């Protein structure tokens, strides 16, 4: 029934190979290359839909298929095996669905770029790797994907090789991801070794690990529980891949890549691999309250931290990048408090609205770029201070961007509302939850609403601040760009209804997502008593509270950034008494500006420049420098002189013999 699962990653692989080998010399035509690339992933999407439908109607929810035996080393048997369960099915739909749309979008966005074929080759390769990551039934196949997506990510960040910054960004992403990979491997080996050497179960198969995980409960390593150590290592891997504190600074820099890349890899799919991985290993994580706590705290801190930095950014893509980091923080909070379903739910809705936001920003940048290029100006096409008032010029982009902003802010009945609310509820009420974390996350939610609307207003509202010469050349993008926007905006609007919370489920639809994912998560949740308990009224109150928080955030942003020039004049004319109020309001505003905005701005700048740039980059650069220094020192032992080489040899000999004698 499920033995054709391999088709799903197969199509993008073929697409990648065709475009990579034949794209430059033989196909050449952009349309065909684009069609091959998009078609490949769309076929995967169709196949995924088929399997998804099949799985929904199947009573057995976990299916493994083995394509071929990979290797057997000693008592370890590893297969090229795929695992289809509700978790991977949801991920499949997200990856293939959003991926298809972004591929389509790329045809328009990358039009005329040098290396068009290369772009689609990498994108398909990425899709292939991501699907391997999602579908792998054992840690090794997952690791194949894990490394593959990383590789494609560097390749695509550094797509514009001629830019020095792009190369640096790729390097940074590389270093941080390596730290993460190191964690992942250590975690894997810890689990593998303990299960094997102490319990005789040599396996890296996820299903088997989940079944045998209970054996590990009493084992200790390095003075701590094995599960704690291993899951902390896994979490380190997740922080690298998913840009969490302290390894998050590569993600904003990764915006050097083309915008579709940012949307697909650095917003919707690859960066959520860490969340998925925790979901996949939820049994292990649930066994260690310590790790769960760490995950939740790190997630919450990242959420608020990145949101703060979001205040101070003027580059539209960087705002979105920090917002992504922050939203990933939300997902980790969810995983940390045991709300696995909520985490995956938010992963899904985030993929919709954040992809839409990124693609929208891409559409704007695309238009700006063309306009500026047309007028021979070298202004920054990504700086929001050069935008403003684009609402009329680009109505579709504006509408979809606005809807996504509403969704990410968590306004009722948009998708973000449901997922974020579930996270907040679990954080508040879960047995693994914490009120402190809840407060932090709520503040972060407020900030999210604020800076997203700031971004919206600065880009689409007010006066157009683009250089007058280029002003009139800004146009709406072609259909290949707007179609994905519309579809994603639609999903961002209604996508949340798959997970309606029980308390407001008037029509008794039920939380479909929760029911669907239950086979994966409920077991560990029940085993370790992870549940959210509280009265329905508390839940409703909290829900209203979070909506209010979002509205306040939007309100503040509206007050501060939506400066319609007509409004004050009309007000003065019609309601002269109100004038003073408005005027005073302005004072308040300015006072507010001085007291609050500037402070937060400074805080934001401090966090960004001070922490992000100095501390984290300092550490990363320091590490790189240290390694560089060691390698230079080593290099200088390489004097080329025969005597030095011989001397080293003899010295090594003497040391060795001395060791013998001393023993």
């Amino acid at each position, binding site marked *: 029934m499920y033995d054709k699962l391999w088709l799903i990653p197969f199509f993008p692989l073929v697409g990648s190979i065709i475009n990579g080998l034949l794209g430059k010399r033989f196909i050449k035509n952009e349309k065909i290359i684009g069609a091959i690339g998009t078609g490949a992933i769309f076929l995967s999407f169709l196949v995924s839909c088929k399997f998804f439908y099949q799985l929904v109607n199947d009573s057995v929810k976990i299916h493994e298929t083995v394509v071929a035996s990979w290797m057997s080393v000693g008592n370890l048997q590893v297969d090229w095996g795929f695992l289809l369960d509700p978790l991977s099915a949801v991920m499949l739909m997200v990856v293939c669905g959003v991926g298809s749309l972004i591929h389509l979008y790329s045809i328009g966005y990358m039009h005329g770029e040098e290396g068009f074929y290369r772009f689609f080759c990498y994108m398909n390769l990425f899709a292939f790797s991501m699907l391997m990551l999602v579908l792998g039934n054992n840690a090794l196949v997952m690791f194949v994907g894990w*490394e593959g997506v990383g590789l494609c990510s560097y390749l695509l960040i550094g797509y514009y*090789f001629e830019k020095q910054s792009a190369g640096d960004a790729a390097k940074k992403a*590389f270093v941080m991801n*390596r730290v993460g990979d190191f964690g992942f491997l250590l975690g894997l080996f810890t689990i593998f070794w303990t299960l094997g050497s102490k319990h005789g179960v040599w396996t890296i198969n996820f299903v088997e690990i989940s079944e045998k995980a209970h054996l590990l409960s009493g084992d200790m390593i390095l003075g701590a529980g094995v599960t704690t150590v291993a899951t902390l290592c896994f979490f380190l891997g997740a922080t690298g891949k998913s840009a969490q504190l302290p390894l998050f600074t590569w993600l904003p820099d990764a915006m050097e890549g083309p915008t579709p890349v940012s949307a697909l890899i650095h917003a919707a799919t690859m960066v959520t691999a860490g969340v998925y991985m925790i979901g996949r290993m939820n049994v292990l994580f649930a066994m260690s309250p310590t790790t769960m706590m760490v995950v939740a705290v790190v997630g919450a801190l990242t959420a608020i931290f990145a949101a703060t930095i979001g205040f101070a950014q003027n580059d539209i893509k960087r705002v979105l990048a920090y917002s992504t980091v922050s939203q990933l923080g939300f997902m980790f909070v969810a995983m940390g408090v045991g709300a696995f379903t909520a985490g995956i739910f938010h992963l899904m809705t985030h993929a919709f609205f954040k992809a839409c936001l990124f693609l929208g920003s891409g559409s704007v940048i695309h238009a700006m770029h063309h306009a500026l290029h047309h007028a021979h100006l070298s202004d920054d096409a990504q700086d929001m201070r050069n935008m403003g008032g684009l609402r009329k010029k680009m109505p579709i982009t504006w509408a979809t961007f606005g809807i996504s902003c509403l969704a990410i802010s968590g306004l009722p009945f948009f998708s973000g509302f449901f997922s974020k609310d579930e996270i907040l509820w679990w954080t508040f009420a879960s047995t693994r939850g914490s009120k402190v974390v809840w407060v932090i996350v709520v503040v972060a939610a407020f900030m999210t609403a604020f800076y997203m609307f700031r971004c919206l207003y600065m880009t689409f509202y007010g006066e157009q601040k683009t250089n007058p010469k280029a002003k009139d050349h800004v146009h709406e993008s072609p259909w290949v760009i707007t179609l994905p926007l519309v579809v994603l905006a639609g999903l961002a609007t209604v996508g949340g209804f798959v997970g309606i919370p029980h308390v407001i489920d008037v029509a008794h639809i039920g939380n479909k997502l929760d029911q669907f994912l239950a086979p994966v998560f409920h077991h560990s949740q029940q085993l370790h008593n992870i549940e959210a308990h509280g009265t329905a009224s508390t839940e409703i109150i909290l829900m209203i509270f979070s909506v209010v928080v979002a509205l306040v955030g939007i309100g503040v942003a509206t007050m501060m950034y939506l400066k319609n020039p007509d409004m004050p004049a009309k007000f003065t004319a019609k309601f002269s008494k109100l004038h003073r109020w408005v005027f005073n309001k302005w004072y308040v505003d300015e006072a507010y500006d001085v007291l609050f905005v500037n402070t937060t701005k400074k805080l934001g700048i401090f966090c960004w420049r001070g922490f992000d740039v100095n501390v984290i980059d300092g550490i990363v650069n320091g590490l790189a420098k240290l390694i560089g220094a060691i*390698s230079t020192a080593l290099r200088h032992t390489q004097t080329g002189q025969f005597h*030095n080489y011989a001397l*080293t*040899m003899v010295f*090594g000999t003497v040391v060795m013999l001395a060791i*013998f004698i001393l023993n």
Partner: protein
Amino acid sequence: MSLSDLLAMLPILILAFGATAILMAGAWYREPLPLLAGGIVTALLGALSAGLVTPPVPEIAGLFSAGGYARFYTILWSLLAAAGLMTGSRYIIEKRIGAGEYVSLVLYAAAGMALLSSATHLVGLFIALETFTLAFYILIASNRNCALAAEAGLKYLLLGAVATGFMAFGIALIYAASGSLVLPDAVMRLKAETGELQAWGLLGWGMILIAVGFKISLAPFHLWTPDVYQGAPAPVTGLLATGSKGAVVAALVGLLAMSGPVWNDLTDLVWLLAALTMLAGAFGALGQSNLKRLLAYSSVTHMGTLLVGVLCQTSEGFAATTFYVVVYVVTSLGAFAVIASLADGRGEPMTFDQWRGLGYRHPVRCGVLVLLLLSLAGLPATAGFMAKFAVFHAALQSGYIGLLMIGILASVISFAFYLRVTMLLFQPDEKASSWHQGSVFEHTVLAVCSSAVLVLGLFPGLLFGLIRQILP
């Protein structure tokens, strides 16, 4: 020596007498191509006979084994010689190196490697080791107009001769302690009644380790590696980096697999050597801006990893090491073959400046190079990953957790420089110049190496199964 002995060593005879025949033919007939073709055919015949002819005796003249393990390596080294000749074809023709001499030396070296991998007697071991070392001294410096090659040859000779001294001294001490030169008895008799190695045995093993350390470039005996790799012509470097190291490791594995755990007193030392080597290679490569030197450091790291597998002293570890040797040989040879295939009148592309943007001028070969580099780096689904994984798995089962961590750390670091080259290749650079298009021979080698890397990565079980059968 009886007829059955001769039959058992048929592959070696084919190689050695083929070498002599080609040498003599070369004295009168100086066209390089037929000589080369003859050499390649001889090497392939050697491989074929090793694969097909079942030896009637298990041991040849009490010096060499004729078992499966020995034949496995005979096949590998014969094929290596064929591939080495193919990669060297343009070098010989264009530089006007004496083809007869060159071809026969490569075949002769292959015979030496095959014998070393199957040695069951310390005399055989010593002579076989010297056989191919000697051939390499000559091959490295075969282009006499090249000052760098002469320097590389001299450096390798002087240091290599010192290592030979250590090797002989080590053998002497083992002989002293055990009274025998026959393997594995000589090694097994080293133990005193307490189960520890006697002082002489310890010293002997130490000296041998130093010599082995030099040959397979373990830190701190690795310093010659980058210099010699850079100076030697790429077709020779390809052989030097793979065969001369692989054969030594093969002999070590064969010896240890036959003699059981004789290294127990040495584990700390070997542990240290392996750790030092992996780190020295990884760190050393980071600072390089010359591809050949970088590959040299990469080979240092790989040798460290190999040593981890040897250190385990379990059948698991030996199987993993053998697999690793094969993968390393294929990958490394391919990488040097790419360099050789690009070489033209200006020499070989070496510095990163020369490589920048070459991916657009020579996409296929640079693509192959990227694949091979990624395999060396151990990217999952390539052969390199499987090899590393198998070795680390064996280390894990033997409880060398610290070494495992260092190994993972080293491969994490080494990823950086492999990827750096990869990125470099595909940087647009207007100044990137075209290099040679390469000959059919070279393309064949590249095709074989890259497909082997993929096949072994996806279906390593085939080779693992074979290795399990043949391990002594």
